[in-house]
């Protein structure tokens, strides 16, 4: 399908049939997200490049579905506020492959946090619990202005939880859509800060595993804060049992991870950050696709389009740095997030 130069990835001459199909896919993706934590609707390939009308329709449909859910599922709908161990869950703040994130208050000192409650039903054997504790302790030791502050981790009513500082702000994706991001010079600096934060995490022995636009929050002072530190794997997020659907979008997952060819490491995080930056400055996702299978195929076989044409307003050194982070072979990328940072700053 020929692409126009406009904002929609599919051009303006999309047939009604095509639009209907996109919408149906998006609605289904939303349902999977709700029930089993697949990719959030706005990260599903069918939605990423869709025309505005599809997004409007999707929003309306999700509204009705929520209204129906509220009525036929009284437990999940009307269940907040509720207590979980020493926490009071106030509102739902988001969902991911690993579990649900709530805005919560620690009753002992009224501290407000983002509490990630890991999905129940995961094999919480002694080994997994110990690994969770170890990683949580490691996360607690890393403090960085561009890393969400770690508060505590543990178990509440038999469910593993991670508490982080509650950061007010919009996600990078939302800010990009609303066009409230700063100009190129500032943006380069902000991204370099995130690379620096990622490097701090890596030096503490932690791999983030889930760097993507919805995990970067633009705080009130303009800082980009990286959320959701490397604990996602504890709830099967890395087990690619189905092509991407269950574990979240493959769009920010390094090719070697998609292939199942290796554990996540610093270089796969570098890729994730590169893909995030590419999408933000280009104003569109790395690849157009309507479904995970074709998206995955393209990620594994195609080189990403160069930024030179789509983001010429950014410095050449920055553009080159981003493209290098997206090399399909890990050894061709920046070896560390620090190297990525330095390359971005030219």
């Amino acid at each position: 399908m020929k692409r126009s130069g406009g904002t929609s990835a599919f051009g303006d001459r999309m047939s009604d049939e095509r639009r209907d199909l996109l919408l149906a896919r998006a609605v289904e993706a939303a349902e999977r997200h709700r029930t089993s934590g697949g990719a959030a609707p706005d990260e599903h390939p069918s939605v990423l490049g869709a025309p505005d009308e599809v997004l409007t329709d999707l929003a309306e449909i999700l509204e009705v579905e929520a209204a129906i859910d509220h009525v036929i599922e009284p437990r999940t709908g009307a269940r907040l506020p509720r207590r979980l161990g020493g926490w009071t869950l106030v509102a739902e703040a988001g969902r991911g492959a690993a579990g649900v994130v709530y805005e919560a208050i620690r009753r002992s000192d009224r501290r407000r946090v983002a509490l990630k409650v890991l999905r129940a039903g995961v094999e919480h054997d002694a080994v997994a619990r110990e690994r969770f504790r170890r990683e949580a302790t490691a996360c607690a030791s890393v403090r960085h202005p561009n890393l969400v502050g770690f508060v505590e981790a543990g178990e509440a009513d038999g469910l593993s939880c991670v508490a982080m500082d509650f950061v007010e702000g919009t996600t990078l994706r939302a800010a990009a859509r609303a066009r409230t991001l700063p100009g190129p010079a500032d943006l380069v600096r902000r991204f370099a800060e995130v690379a620096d934060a990622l490097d701090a995490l890596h030096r503490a022995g932690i791999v983030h595993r889930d760097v993507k636009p919805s995990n970067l929050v633009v705080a009130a002072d303009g800082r980009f804060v990286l959320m959701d530190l490397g604990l996602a794997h504890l709830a099967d997020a890395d087990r690619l049992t189905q092509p991407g659907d269950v574990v979240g979008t493959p769009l920010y997952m390094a090719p070697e991870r998609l292939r199942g060819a290796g554990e996540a490491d610093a270089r796969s995080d570098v890729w994730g950050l590169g893909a995030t930056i590419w999408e933000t400055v280009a104003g569109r996702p790395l690849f157009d696709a309507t479904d995970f299978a074709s998206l995955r195929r393209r990620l594994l076989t195609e080189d990403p389009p160069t930024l030179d044409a789509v983001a010429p307003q950014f410095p050449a050194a920055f553009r080159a740095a981003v493209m290098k982070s997206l090399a399909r072979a890990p050894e061709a990328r920046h070896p560390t997030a620090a190297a990525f940072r330095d390359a971005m700053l030219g």
Partner: protein
Amino acid sequence: MGSHDTFSLLADARGGDASARSELLDALRARLVLWCASRMSPALRAKIEPEDLAQETLIAIHRDLDGFDGRERAAFYAWVFRIAENRIRDAADRAGADKRREREIPRPPVTTPGTSAARREAVQRLSDAIGRLPEDHRRVVCMRRFEEKSYEEIAAALGRTETAARVLYCRALKSLRAELGEES
């Protein structure tokens, strides 16, 4: 989140936990009321209220719950709605066979925690809006949301392709939203 919804009560309810059983039945109520309202013919609705038909269904579910040995969500809802189908058929037969006698529906006390006026209103609003939908939209909403049928099953029931069933569902929700938006 799957771990806390209505279906998650089933294990405890069958295991003898009386309050889980009561909560399960209560949680099913709204779904059944909406389903009955969608499925009942106007003639039948003149004879019996959807709430009463839903109540009959809940009584039967309560009675037969220990005999249900499925573990999957899909199996559970298929079982629930088989019972509901039987109730609706019986009610239609009763309504046809004896037009003059006023049928008293037994109402054994079932505790209904959390059935607030606001919730009843929400059920009513949704029920009315669904009632105003065209037949095929009503059917697909019923099958997808209340009966939790797969698109494959819906497609087979409607004689369409799976893709057509998905698209129909989207259109049905859009028209439902329009109906809901009509009210103040």
